[in-house]
C-alpha cells in the first residue's frame, strides 16, 4: 500500500462525481472526500509505525522525469489538512443550490487531487504539473459560479490566473535550469546540487515570484481580495484554506533547501516583506465594508506572519508557521463559512446591512465569536500556539520584528471585534435571521472543536512535523 492510492481515489472520485448527475453529485463528492480523509488517516497510522509509503515510477526517460511521491510528516500533515478541509467545504456547501452541480463538485475533487499531488510530489516537474493543475479548477469555479457583476468577476479572475501562471512559469525556468545542473529533478539531487552564489540568487528569485504571488506576499497580493470576494464561498474556502498553503509549503520544501544561501542573504528583506503584509493587511482590513473582503485582508495579514516565520530559518519559526498554516486553514474556512451563512439569510455581504443576529440566533453567535477569537489568536485556541511560536522565533532574529509582527494581534483584535459588533450585535435587524440548521451547526462545531483540541494539545501535530522540519533545516544549515 503506498500513497498513490490516495491520488487515484481522488481522481476517480472526481470522475464519478461528474457522471453521477446533478442530483447526486454533492453526496458522491462528500463520500469520496470523506473516504480520502479516512484513507489519509490510515496512511498516517501506517506512517507512524514506520512503513514506507513512497511511490516511484519511471515516467519520461528523456528528459529524466519520474512519477515520484514522497511521504514525510510535513507532507502528511498537509495532506490531512487538504482532505479534511475538502470534506468540510463540500459538506458546508449542501445549503447552496449550484447550477450544473456535477461540474462544480467534480472540479472541487479534482482540485483536491491536484493539491494533494503538490504536497506529495518529490520530482520537480511532477510537482510543477500538480501545482499548475490546481489552478485550472479554481479558475472555472470562480469564473462560472462566482457572484457579483460578470464583467468585474471576469477581470478579477483573469488577473488572478495570469498572475499565478506568470509566477509559476518563472519557477518552471528555474526547474529547467536546475535540471541542466543536476541531470535530474528528484528532491534529493536538487538538495545536493552545487550552485554558485549568483545562481542561487536567481533561482531563489524565480521561486519567490511563484510563491509570493500564490501566498500572497506584498507587493504581489493585488489579485487576492477581489478574487476572494467574487468567488463563490466554496472557491474562497479552497483558495484561502488550502491553496495558499501550497505556496507556503513549497517555500519550506523547495525554495529554502535548494537555495539556502540566497535565503540567508535576503533574510531581513524577506521577513520585512512578511511583516509589511501583516501591517498593511490589518490596516486595510479595518476600512473594509464588505465582509468577505475584510476576511481576505485579515487572511493577508496572517499569511504574511506565517511567511515571516518561515523565512527566519529557525526550527521554531518553521514549526510555528506550519502549525499556524493548519490553524489558519480551519479558521479561515470557518469564517468564510459564517459569511456564507449570513449571506444565505440576508443576501448581502455589506457589514453595515447586518446586525442584530445575536438576539435571533445565540447559538450561531457563540460559534462565530469563538472563530473570531481564534482568528485573533486567543490563548487556548490552536492559532495562539502557532502565532506565538512564530512571534517567538521572530524575536530571536530581531526583537523589533516580533513587536511589529505582534501588531497583528492588536490590530486583528480591533478589526475583528469591531466586525463582530457590527455584524452580530446592535439593534434588531428588520430582516429575520433563520436559526442555523443542523448541517451548518455540525460544520462549525467540527471546526471549533479542532481549533480547541489542538489549542490545548498541539503535541500530535508537533511530533508529526518536527522530524521532517529538522531534516530540511539540516539541509539549509549545511
Amino acid at each position: 500500500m503506498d500513497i498513490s492510492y490516495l491520488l487515484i481515489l481522488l481522481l476517480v472520485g472526481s470522475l464519478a462525481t461528474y457522471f453521477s448527475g446533478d442530483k447526486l453529485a454533492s453526496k458522491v463528492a462528500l463520500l469520496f472526500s470523506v473516504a480520502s480523509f479516512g484513507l489519509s488517516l490510515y496512511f498516517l497510522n501506517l506512517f507512524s509505525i514506520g512503513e514506507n509509503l513512497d511511490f516511484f515510477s519511471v515516467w519520461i526517460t528523456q528528459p529524466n522525469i519520474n512519477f515520484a511521491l514522497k511521504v514525510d510528516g510535513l507532507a502528511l500533515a498537509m495532506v490531512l489538512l487538504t482532505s479534511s478541509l475538502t470534506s468540510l467545504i463540500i459538506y458546508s456547501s449542501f445549503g447552496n443550490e449550484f447550477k450544473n452541480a456535477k461540474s462544480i463538485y467534480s472540479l472541487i475533487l479534482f482540485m483536491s487531487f491536484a493539491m494533494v499531488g503538490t504536497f506529495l510530489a518529490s520530482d520537480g516537474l511532477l510537482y510543477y504539473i500538480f501545482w499548475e493543475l490546481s489552478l485550472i479548477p479554481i479558475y472555472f469555479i470562480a469564473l462560472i459560479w462566482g457572484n457579483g457583476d460578470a464583467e468585474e468577476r471576469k477581470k478579477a479572475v483573469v488577473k488572478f490566473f495570469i498572475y499565478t501562471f506568470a509566477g509559476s512559469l518563472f519557477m518552471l525556468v528555474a526547474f529547467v535550469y536546475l535540471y541542466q545542473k543536476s541531470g535530474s529533478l528528484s528532491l534529493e539531487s536538487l538538495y545536493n546540487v552545487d550552485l554558485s552564489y549568483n545562481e542561487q540568487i536567481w533561482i531563489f528569485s524565480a521561486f519567490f515570484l511563484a510563491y509570493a504571488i500564490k501566498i500572497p506576499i506584498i507587493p504581489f497580493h493585488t489579485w487576492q481580495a477581489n478574487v476572494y470576494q467574487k468567488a463563490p464561498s466554496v472557491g474562497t474556502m479552497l483558495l484561502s484554506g488550502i491553496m495558499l498553503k501550497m505556496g507556503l509549503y513549497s517555500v519550506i520544501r523547495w525554495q529554502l533547501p535548494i537555495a539556502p544561501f540566497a535565503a540567508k542573504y535576503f533574510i531581513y528583506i524577506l521577513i520585512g516583506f512578511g511583516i509589511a503584509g501583516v501591517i498593511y493587511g490589518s490596516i486595510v482590513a479595518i476600512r473594509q465594508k464588505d465582509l468577505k473582503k475584510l476576511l481576505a485582508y485579515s487572511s493577508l495579514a496572517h499569511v504574511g506572519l506565517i511567511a515571516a516565520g518561515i523565512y527566519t530559518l529557525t526550527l521554531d519559526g518553521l514549526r510555528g508557521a506550519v502549525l499556524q498554516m493548519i490553524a489558519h486553514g480551519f479558521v479561515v474556512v470557518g469564517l468564510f463559512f459564517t459569511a456564507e451563512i449570513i449571506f444565505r439569510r440576508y443576501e448581502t455581504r455589506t457589514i453595515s446591512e447586518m446586525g442584530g443576529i445575536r438576539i435571533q440566533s445565540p447559538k450561531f453567535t457563540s460559534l462565530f465569536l469563538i472563530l473570531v477569537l481564534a482568528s485573533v489568536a486567543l490563548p487556548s485556541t490552536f492559532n495562539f500556539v502557532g502565532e506565538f511560536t512564530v512571534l517567538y522565533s521572530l524575536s530571536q532574529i530581531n526583537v523589533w520584528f516580533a513587536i511589529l509582527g505582534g501588531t497583528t494581534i492588536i490590530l486583528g483584535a480591533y478589526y475583528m471585534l469591531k466586525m463582530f459588533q457590527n455584524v452580530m450585535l446592535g439593534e434588531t435587524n428588520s430582516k429575520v435571521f433563520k436559526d442555523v440548521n443542523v448541517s451548518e451547526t455540525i460544520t462549525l462545531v467540527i471546526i471549533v472543536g479542532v481549533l480547541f483540541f489542538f489549542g490545548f494539545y498541539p503535541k500530535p501535530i508537533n511530533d508529526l512535523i518536527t522530524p521532517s522540519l529538522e531534516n530540511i533545516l539540516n539541509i539549509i544549515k549545511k
Partner: protein
Amino acid sequence: MNTLIATTALGVFCLLFEIFNLRKAIVPITIVGLIAILGLNISEFGMQASYYNNMVVVDKFSTAYSSLFIVLTIFLVALAHNFYENHQSKLSDFIAIKVFLLAGCLAMVSFGNLAMFFLGIEILSISLYVLAASNRMNLKSNEAGMKYFLMGSFASGIILFGICLIYGAIGSFDMRTIQEAAMSADVEEWFYIGVILLSIGLLFKIAAVPFHFWAPDVYEGSPSLTTATMSTLAKVTAMATFFKLASAMTGNLPSTSQTVIVVVAMLSMTIGNIMALRQVNVKRMLAFSGISHAGFMLMTLLNISVAAGSLLYYTSAYALAGIAAFSVILYVCKNQNNEDIANFHGLGKTNPLLAAILTASLLSMAGIPIFAGFFAKLVLFNQTIQAGYLALVIVAVVNSIISVGYYFKLILAMYTKEPNETREGRPFLIYAVAIIAILLNILLGIFPSYVLNLL
C-alpha cells in the same frame, strides 16, 4: 517511397470517383485508404532506403513525419464531409486536392535531392492556392487566394534562386553531396547566400516574422477548412523541411549565425502574440498565434543535433490542438459569415462538450500541464538552455504569459457570455475528429516518451 506512390494513386482515384458517380462514398473511402497508407508507412518505420538515384530517401525522420501528416490529412478529410455539404458537385475535387497536398508534404520530408524538394513544395503550395480561393463566389476568399499566390510564388522564386546558387557552389542537387560539401572547409561563399535565400523562402512558408504579413489576411479570407490545413499541415511540413535542410546545410556555419535564428524566433513570438491580443476574428487570432508558435519551433534549430524528436513532439502537439480547435470553429461558424469571437458566446451552455474541447486545445497551445503543449515547451526550453540561450527562453516564457491573454479571451467568451443563438444538429464526423484529436493530444501529454524518443 511506397507511401508517396500510394498517396498519389489515392488522389487519382478520388478524381475518378466523380466519373463513376460515387460521390457519397468518397469521404469514407478516402479515410480508409489513408488509414491503409498510414499502416503501410508505419510498417516502413526504422528502414533506411533510397530510391531513384537518391531522389527519395526514406529514414526514421521521414517516416515519423509522414505518419503525422497522414494522420492530420485523415482529420482534414473527415472534416470536409460536413464542410462541403453545400458544394457536393466539387467534393471530389477538394478531397483529391487534399490528398495531392499530402503527397507534396510527403515529398517534402523524404526528399534526397533538391529537385524533389522543390517539386514537393510546389505541389503543396499550388494545392493551397487553389484551396484558399476555392470559395469562388466570396470576395474575401478570392482575395486570400490571390494574395497567397502572389506572395507564395515570390517565395518559391527565392527558394529556386537559392537552390541555383547552391548548385553553382557545389555542382549537385544531391543532399548527400551537399551535406559533405557543407561540412568541408573550402566551400564557395555563394553557397551560404543560397542557404540564406532558401531559409527566407521557408521562413515565409512557416510564417515567421518578418515574412509573416500574408498569414493573417490569408487565414481570415480562406474557407475555414483551408485555414485549418494551412495552420496545421502546411506549417508543420514547412517546419520539418526547414529542420531537415538546416541540419544538412549549416554544419560548417559559425555559431554566431545562430543569432539570426534567435532574433527571428524572438520577433516571431513577440509580434505574433502581441498582435493576437487585439484580434476579434478567431481565425486571425489563430494566425497570429501560429506565427508565435513558428517562433517556438524555430528554437529547435539552435540545438539541431538532438532536437529532431522534440520538434516532432512540438509539431504533433501543436497540430493536434489546432485540428481540435478548428473542428469546433467549423461547427460554430458553419452558417455564419464571419468567425468573430461573438459567435462563441455561451458555447459552454449550449454545447458543453465542444466548449470543453476548444478550451482544452487552447490550454494546450498556451502550455498548461498535462496537455501535450506543455511538455513540448518544456523539452524545447530544456534544450535551448542546454545550448546556452537562457535569454531566449526567458523571452519565450514571457510570451507564454502574454499568449494566455488571448487564448483566455475565447474561453471567457464561451463560459461567461449568454448564448445568442442555438445550433441544430450534431455532425458526427466533426465530433469524432474533435474528440479523437484532443484525446491524442492528452495521450501525448501523459506519455511523452513515446514520441520524444522516436527520432
